[in-house]
């Protein structure tokens, strides 16, 4: 095939980008080379629209061992232990083929983690679907959940937490973000930087097939009516092979023969070989006839662009090939020496004794396009005045039941029961809590992780929304007694070529950055997923934040279930009555305008750190952060989990009952304490200038409001747990 401008455009490149390629090469590329450029220069691999803005994120900290730029981020958790973690999107493929799309998303992120030498110890996910009434939603949800479970369960890695949301803006573009945490010894972390000349380049894992060709390009474009035709670009997962690959790689990593290792993810052999060469400032020469292929007569173009799963590329110390091969033979995996490192600083490919590609590595990486896209600032919307008569006819209990049964609040047990969350024998907080928690095997330490997004807030005001998601992650970790350490972000947005979508991206990133900086909660890894749109309609801006924290003594972990009758329940943090953009305003009053709740970073940090102090002094029986649905929703969940009730009393504020109970002011928690500790607790709160309200006392089995209205916890439980099961069984 001869290459010309039209062929380049069909590969998703812009006219100007094609001209730049010809200039850089000083000739017209051949088809294999064009394929390589298109794979490296698409949005998914090159971050061409986002790089400029991502640079502003805080990425350093005392406990950060490795920030963005490697396969995953790495943090220090003491005693020579480190946690490797990252979140990644697999949105486009999951919409086209939900089972395989979600499964390979989970497989891909686990590979990113064990590539660095870490054994995966926990999986999480954040999934967003269209309106429950939309005709595709149910099947997509079922397929995605089966896919996530199918892969993670087979790998034997527990899925410990997650988040599921529904909103009509995802009708044509669902989101599937998968996160993995791995455990490694600090001196056994592996990187992707090649080093040394004439070192053997090794291919291990599954054979290469024709699946997933152009996967990364597909993920860098909007959907139109022809998406069904894109099914062949979805990769097919084989978790069994990945389990073998994991064990084989860790066995090889126990020795000292690996110089560099990189998994073949998006853009397969192309990006893995180029990244290793680029980081090592070297060249790589590959004989494509040596690549193990699953299908006959694959062309160099297909071999380079295949996204077949469960493959790794390794630069080995010379002379260690036999020893390494033995390990992969034992695990029945392919092992092939396919090339070597060179000093040419070029990627040189051979096939049937002909040179089929000859590209300087820097043209693909450093010279890749970077755009300063136009973007539009979002003004802070004006506050709504809630009319007193709108509230007059509302009965708190009815509203509460509706909110507890709302698809975005209701229990997601139907989902997480399908994930093995107890394998590995260290899961001490299961899904359904504020964070999932796993012990660091054989120690007293535990690692907490949660994943959050707040698309509604981000949509109403991206800057505030961006800050809010980071704060929510911070709170979810604190609520289980963990000290927040670092985050990973998965930035899901519409088209960067649209000024409004780009503005949402820029301002969310700014918000994330400001909050992360202030809370000393740096971003150590992440990914960007643009073009989550069908034709002209984009999703609500949805940054997902995965937070990781440490509990030094796992016996001090906190759960949210109420523990004991007569204990006292406090609200930490001030309730101002911010109702705009709350679940209450949007779903009960049907009011979709107004600003999201304001973020006060000082209070956020101070409230959180003070609560940690209380927890470390053994003064807290249970805790839960207050998020969508406000105080009463949060406390109801604590009641449901603990099979206990509460006598609630609204403190004497100026705001009315409805505002007090359903407002979504930020930086708040609910805690349960023993009566005998009340003074100690309030002393510490006062000393640290933390506002608190006494909310009530724990009772046997009723939610009793202001000694007037009541409802049994069983009734609330039914509201909370039945929606999803009913919906999925219809």
């Amino acid at each position: 095939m001869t290459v010309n401008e039209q062929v380049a455009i069909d590969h998703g490149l812009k006219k100007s980008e094609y001209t730049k390629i010809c200039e850089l090469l000083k000739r017209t590329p051949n088809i294999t080379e064009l394929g390589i450029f298109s794979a490296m220069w698409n949005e998914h691999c090159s971050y061409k629209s986002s790089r400029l803005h991502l640079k502003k994120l805080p990425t350093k900290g005392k406990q950060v061992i490795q920030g963005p730029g490697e396969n995953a981020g790495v943090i220090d958790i003491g005693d020579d232990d480190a946690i490797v973690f990252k979140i990644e999107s697999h949105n486009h493929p999951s919409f086209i083929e939900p089972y395989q799309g979600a499964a390979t998303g989970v497989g891909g992120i686990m590979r990113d983690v064990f590539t660095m030498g870490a054994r995966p110890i926990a999986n999480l996910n954040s999934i967003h679907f269209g309106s429950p009434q939309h005709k595709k939603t149910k099947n997509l949800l079922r397929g995605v959940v089966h896919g996530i479970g199918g892969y993670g369960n087979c790998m034997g890695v527990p899925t410990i937490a997650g988040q599921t949301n529904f909103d009509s803006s995802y009708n044509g573009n669902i989101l599937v973000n998968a996160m993995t945490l791995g455990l490694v010894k600090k001196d056994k972390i592996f990187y992707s930087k090649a080093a040394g000349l004439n070192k053997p380049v090794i291919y291990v894992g599954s054979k290469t097939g024709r699946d997933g060709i152009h996967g990364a390009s597909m993920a860098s474009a909007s959907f139109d009516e022809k998406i069904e035709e894109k099914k062949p670009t979805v990769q097919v997962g084989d978790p069994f092979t990945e389990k073998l690959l994991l064990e084989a790689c860790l066995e090889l990593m126990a020795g000292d023969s690996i110089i560099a290792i990189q998994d073949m993810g998006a853009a397969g052999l192309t990006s893995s070989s180029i990244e290793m060469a680029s980081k090592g400032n070297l060249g790589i020469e590959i004989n494509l006839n040596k690549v193990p292929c699953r299908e006959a007569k694959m062309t160099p173009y297909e071999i380079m662009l295949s996204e077949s799963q469960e493959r790794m590329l390794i630069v080995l110390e010379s002379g260690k090939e036999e020893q390494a091969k033995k390990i992969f033979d034992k695990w029945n995996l392919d092992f092939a020496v396919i090339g070597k490192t060179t000093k040419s600083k070029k990627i040189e490919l051979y096939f049937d004794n002909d040179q089929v590609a000859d590209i300087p590595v820097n043209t693909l990486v450093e010279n890749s396009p970077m755009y300063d896209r136009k973007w539009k600032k979002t003004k802070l919307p004006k506050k709504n005045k809630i009319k007193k008569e709108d509230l007059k006819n509302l009965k708190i209990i009815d509203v509460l039941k509706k909110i507890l049964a709302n698809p975005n609040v209701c229990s997601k047990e139907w989902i997480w029961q399908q994930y093995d969350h107890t394998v590995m024998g260290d899961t001490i907080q299961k899904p359904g809590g504020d964070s999932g928690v796993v012990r660091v095997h054989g120690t007293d330490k535990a690692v907490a992780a949660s994943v959050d997004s707040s698309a509604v807030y981000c949509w109403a005001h991206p800057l505030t929304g961006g800050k809010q998601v980071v704060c929510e992650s911070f709170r979810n970790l604190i609520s289980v007694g963990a000290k927040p350490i670092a985050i990973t972000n998965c930035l899901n947005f519409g088209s960067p070529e649209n000024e409004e979508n780009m503005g949402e991206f820029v301002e969310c990133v700014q918000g994330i950055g400001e909050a992360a900086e202030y809370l000393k909660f740096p971003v150590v890894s992440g990914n960007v997923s643009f073009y989550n749109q069908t034709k002209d309609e984009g999703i609500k801006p949805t940054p997902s934040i995965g937070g990781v924290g440490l509990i030094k003594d796992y016996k001090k972990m906190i759960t949210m279930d109420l523990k004991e009758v007569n204990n006292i329940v406090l609200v930490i943090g001030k309730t101002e009555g911010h109702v705009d953009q709350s679940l209450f305003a949007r779903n009960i009053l049907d009011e979709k305008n107004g600003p999201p709740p304001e973020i006060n970073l000082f209070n956020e940090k101070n409230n959180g750190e003070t609560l940690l102090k209380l927890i470390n002094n053994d003064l807290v029986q249970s805790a839960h952060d207050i998020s969508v649905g406000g105080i009463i929703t949060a406390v109801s969940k604590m009641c449901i989990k603990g099979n206990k009730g509460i006598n609630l009393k609204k403190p004497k504020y100026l705001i009315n009952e409805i505002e007090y109970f359903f407002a979504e002011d930020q930086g708040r928690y609910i805690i349960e304490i023993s009566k005998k500790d009340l003074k100690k607790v309030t002393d510490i709160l006062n000393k640290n200038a933390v506002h608190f309200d006494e909310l009530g006392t724990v009772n046997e089995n009723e939610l009793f409001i202001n000694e007037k209205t009541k409802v049994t916890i069983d009734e609330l439980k039914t509201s909370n747990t039945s929606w999803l099961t009913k919906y999925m069984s219809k």
Partner: protein
Amino acid sequence: MKSSVITFPGSNCDRDMDVALKKFGFKNKMVWHDDAELPKSDLVVLPGGFSYGDYLRCGSMASKSKIMKSVMNFANSGGMVMGICNGFQILVETGLVPGVLLRNKYLEFICKNVFVKIKNKKNTYFKNIDNDVLEFHIAHNEGNYFCTKDQLKEIEDNEQVAINYCDKDGKTEEQFNPNGSIKNIAGIFNKEKNVLGMMPHPERMIDPSLSGEDGSLFFNNLINNLK
């Protein structure tokens, strides 16, 4: 007491079982599926997981692997062999215990705590356990036990049912059956009661911080019975 845990390609509860056995006093060895001989053992465990990806039928390929000849000889000469989850599926495929394990009734993977009632205590596994009901944990996609009417009669006549799914009070009604198993069967013995296959994972219930501690009861009792 010496135990052996077999690791097949795709096993993923082998380490958890190793941790549990050692915690309760076994000297445990991990044995690779491609080995020919079992080390000297008082107990052999086939752990949970997805042996060979469970691609043909759950447990079917593992039942033909090299070490299984030795495991079968050991079982047939009276040796204690326990299969958990995928291990149970492997035992069924070898014919060491009767019946088959089908996909769960609602076609979904289930991971949760369940209660099981001990049906038969006249054997080395459950002898001397005070409790009649244990809280265990299941995590499987194919745990729906099935057998023919004739087989069922034989199993019941020989008292081969080990445990049934039930509620916390020991009621074994259909509503407490998580996966559609015939007669709520969660685990069965061979005729001689030296081979036990069960879907629940006692190794995940060995610590108050985990899902519960009834697994500790089970393992403590087991090692004492073996002594």
